[in-house]
């Protein structure tokens, strides 16, 4: 009896283990398939975002920083500022409001000041700020290291 029981237990374990292995052999490829392969992108650390005369004071433009949008601002005082244009709340693209003289996200009414600090609404973190360098007539934006 106890001999039987032991045999049955071993057989159950073997069968159960076999079924689990079989199921994992099916689901592992499916799960891996669903995760898209990461395509290596050329790391962009600096781009030409605008020309010096392109923006008036208290205006802005969205520029391409690699495959992500960036926001270049010329403040009312005439200073250049650049940030990521991606809202830290839920991934929307922010814009510069010349009437408020700061940065605003339309999706959930988040506000950031001209230093990129989240000052009201739901954004949890400041916007990442980039360095702006003027070289001749061109405005270059680069990631801070």
């Amino acid at each position, binding site marked *: 009896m106890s001999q039987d029981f032991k045999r049955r237990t071993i057989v159950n374990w073997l069968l159960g283990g076999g079924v689990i292995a079989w199921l994992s052999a099916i689901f592992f490829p499916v799960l891996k398939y*669903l*995760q*898209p392969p990461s395509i290596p992108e050329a790391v962009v650390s600096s781009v030409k975002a605008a020309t010096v005369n392109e923006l008036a004071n208290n205006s802005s433009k*969205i520029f*391409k920083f690699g*495959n*992500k*949008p960036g926001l270049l601002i010329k403040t009312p005082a005439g200073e250049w500022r650049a940030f990521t*244009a991606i809202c830290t*709340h*839920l*991934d*929307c*693209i*922010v*814009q510069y409001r010349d009437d408020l003289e700061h940065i605003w*996200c*339309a*999706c*959930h*009414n988040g506000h950031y000041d001209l230093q990129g600090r*989240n000052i009201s*609404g*739901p*954004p*949890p973190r400041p916007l990442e700020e980039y360095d702006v360098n003027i070289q001749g007539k061109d405005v270059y934006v680069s990631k801070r290291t």
Partner: protein
Amino acid sequence: MKESILSWLKNRYPVDSVTEFAQKKKVPLFQGTIWYYFGGITLFLFLIQVATGILLLFYYRTGADQAYESVKFLMTKVHFGWLIRSIHSWAANLMVLSAFIHMFSVFFTRAYRKPRELTWITGMVLFLLAMAFGFSGYLLPWNELAFFATKVGTDIVGAVPFVGDFLLTLLRGGSDVTGATLSRFFGFHVALFPGIFTLFLVIHLAFVQVQGMSKPIGAKEEELKTMPFFPNFVLRDLLIWLIVLNVLAILAVFFPWELGAKADPFVPAPAGIRPEWYFMFMFQTLKMLPAHIAGLEGETVGVMAFAIAGIFWILIPFFDRSSQRGHKSKLLTYIGIIVVIFILVMTILGYTLS
């Protein structure tokens, strides 16, 4: 002719038992009989979605550089293309509305009580799938509003603890909302969801046939007035379906669905952007939460709260002991009323607050 066909069938299939079964089914007549129509209305609208969806598939092309253009072509060049798309959009909204009414009427009449717990659970699965249909279908025209709605919606999924990042990548087909996301959503919307939905719909309806119509809680069997389901109630169902079809036609023709501007990942979100109305209450709640609650990010807390509330709602038949004993608990009625008021107030705020 009719006789010979019928006898041919009777010799092969148990036709008599089917007709007998159809004659047995009764619909209770009382103050709440009106609520018995909304399941059928939801079903009717789903059938319209299947028909118009298949028609749209004949012209729709997926892909970031083709989707918007193909919908534009469909709406401007294809005969009645604007009408088919408009019906599909409007029927989607009416279907969700009708499902909401169906769900809350079942909740307040306690029709989910023993022995119908699984009918409620399959119904909730269908309801969540209807929302998923709405969310995935919304992106397919690849317009500006849909693009940002999808960015926000999938980012909210990313706020789920532990598995958020995995789910986000799974949904977006990468780290950003791109053409890969569109391909995935297309697959969800036209293949995966319809398959699962059909399966659960069959189960949901089979349960209703097997257990019959639920009776009002606390009613005495002998005092209850009833109406035969077939043909009396079915004919009334058909009349309501006809009325719904007319309402749908009026909405689709006089308020045709807009296409808007093409999605551009390098343009700021437009002012006044908002989700579809049935996501509005969640959207508005997330908007009102502070950035940090108890050391966690606001939306993580909000998303978890909605998830827990949803799970509680799905498992209501098992919590509600008093309905199993044949009376309504006042507490649950109040909870239901609070939920309805919360949804209504948040939705209204979403449309009125700037």
